[in-house]
């Protein structure tokens, strides 16, 4: 049994990639417990397995061995449909390249998780507006197409899309990687605010100034979490960028 405050647990996670006869291990046995309301950063060099780990805990990919338990639900027991439902209800994703759908408006992009959930149109409006406000976005963007916004603005729309379903966990893969420092600060401020409201945030990053905004920094190398570091709030990008 999981303790009630554990929102996510990874047990001996392994992921192998096979190319012909060659097997490469992306993850070599990751054990991780994340408490409800934590803000965790995962850091490590390129190819260390950060994104692979994020994909596993976001149920975007299946582990070769091991298991993931999200809010008490053992992922390995779920069907494809149940996994999609769990992703929709419990997890919000933020990507480095925003991954907004260019032919849809900002409003339509943000409401996508609600559409997947089958929510009626008239109920979606209020939730879309609230999510964009929470992501420090501007309501005048709603009718615009993503390419009419700056990178920082697009990332805030992507955060609003991740928040719209009020998920328990926000997973962000290099969310500031494509942004200038000022926009990166705004994004981190949003994550901190969201985390203060009780949502768990897990960020994969290269940037120590981003990692320092979290409660816990996990260092991953060669597919294993090798150590845990204490963040330094004074060195968080929110404080370093004026």
């Amino acid at each position, binding site marked *: 049994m999981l303790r009630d405050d554990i929102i996510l647990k990874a047990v001996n996670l392994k992921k192998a990639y096979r190319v012909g006869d060659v097997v490469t291990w992306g993850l070599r046995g990751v054990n991780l417990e994340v408490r409800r309301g934590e803000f965790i950063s995962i850091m490590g060099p390129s190819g260390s397995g950060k994104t692979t780990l994020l994909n596993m805990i976001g149920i975007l990919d*299946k582990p070769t061995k091991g298991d993931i338990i999200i809010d008490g639900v053992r992922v390995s027991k779920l069907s494809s449909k149940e996994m999609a439902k769990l992703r929709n209800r419990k997890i919000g994703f933020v990507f480095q390249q925003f991954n907004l759908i260019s032919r849809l408006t900002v409003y339509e992009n943000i409401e996508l998780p609600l559409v997947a959930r089958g929510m009626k149109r008239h109920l979606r409006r209020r939730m879309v507006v609230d999510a964009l406000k929470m992501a420090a976005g501007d309501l005048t963007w709603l009718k615009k197409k993503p390419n009419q916004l700056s990178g920082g603005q697009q990332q805030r729309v992507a955060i609003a899309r991740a928040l719209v379903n009020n998920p328990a966990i926000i997973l962000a893969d290099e969310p500031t990687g494509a942004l200038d420092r000022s926009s990166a600060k705004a994004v981190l401020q949003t994550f901190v605010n969201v985390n203060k409201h009780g949502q768990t945030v897990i960020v994969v990053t290269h940037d120590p100034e981003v990692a320092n905004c979290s409660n816990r920094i996990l260092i991953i190398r060669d597919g294993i979490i090798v150590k845990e570091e204490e963040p330094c709030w004074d060195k968080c990008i929110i404080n370093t960028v004026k």
Partner: protein
Amino acid sequence: MMTSVVRGYGSYVESQLLGLGQNTVVVMGTSEYTLTRNDLDYIRGLPEVDVAEPFYLTQAYIQTKEGRKQVYVYAIDYDILNKAIGNLKLEKGEYPSLTDVTSAVIGHFVAFSESTGAKLFDIGDAITILMPQVKSGGKVTFTRATVRVSGIFEEYGGAMFVSPDTGIFLPEKSGKSILHMNSWSGIFIIVKDPMLVDSLVKKLRSTYAGKVDIIAFQQIAKVVSSITGAIDFIAFSTSLSAFAVAVAGTAATMITSVIERTREIGVLKALGFTDSQVMWMIIAEAILMSLIGGLIGVTLGLGGAFVMASRGLSISSGVSKLVIKAPPKITPELISYTMGITIIVGIIGGLIPAYRAAKIPPAVALRYE
């Protein structure tokens, strides 16, 4: 388009033939056989025959304000004409008496211009008919006859044997006295019951052994029906090939679309869209694409069908030429059938790309560049 035009011509020809009367048979004299009173008596004596009347028919020209115009001149009993051609009505005037050999009822497009609708002849007007005659040595001379307009028929439309709109109809006695024809062109027969047509035709063929032409409209209608049915089948077979091409085209387009949007599909899955939601989304897009194509196709097809039909189907035989202008038979069923096929094309064409999209693992799709 093809189906509507073929069905349009088919139903037009059938309706015109059957409009002449399912129980109408015409025996036409030939160059090797001249119909005489003996033939008329023999035919009238057959048990299947209700009425049989001889008639004269010649092609001729008249002079109008618009120039020389080709017409068909009939000398025929008006009663049998009305029995043979249903719905033939007088627009103006009256039928002349049987003895009034110089009075005629004229067709609508003899009285009015076919192109402008302007009046060319009215009741009481005199029409000079020029009848060509080929003399020895191939020289053509014209015999003149002048008749007075006693009545004008309403517009009837094209017909396979009788052309009411371009005809001049005189009493039967006028054949000899006005048209100077020595022998009947044919004998119009009304059979007692349409069921007896086949038996009568069989008897006549047996008696005359190919010396005369026997035209049974019911039988022609059956032949036309079977020909249009065959053409319809060919059109259907052709449409099957078009169906296969359309399915392949839709599938190719959707596969390309799915490949181009792999990353987008990954995003949708990351946001919680299920495999079946992604699959239906792609199929719905394929159906929508097919429907747009179908609507454009139906619109162009309708235009093409009307253009083809407006040009008419030209049937020539020697110097005679008949142009059938039948509207394409476009029915709600035909349009529904076409749109139904279009939806099926969308579903079948979209199925494989949709399945492919649904089965892409989200992490793989998100990595796709």
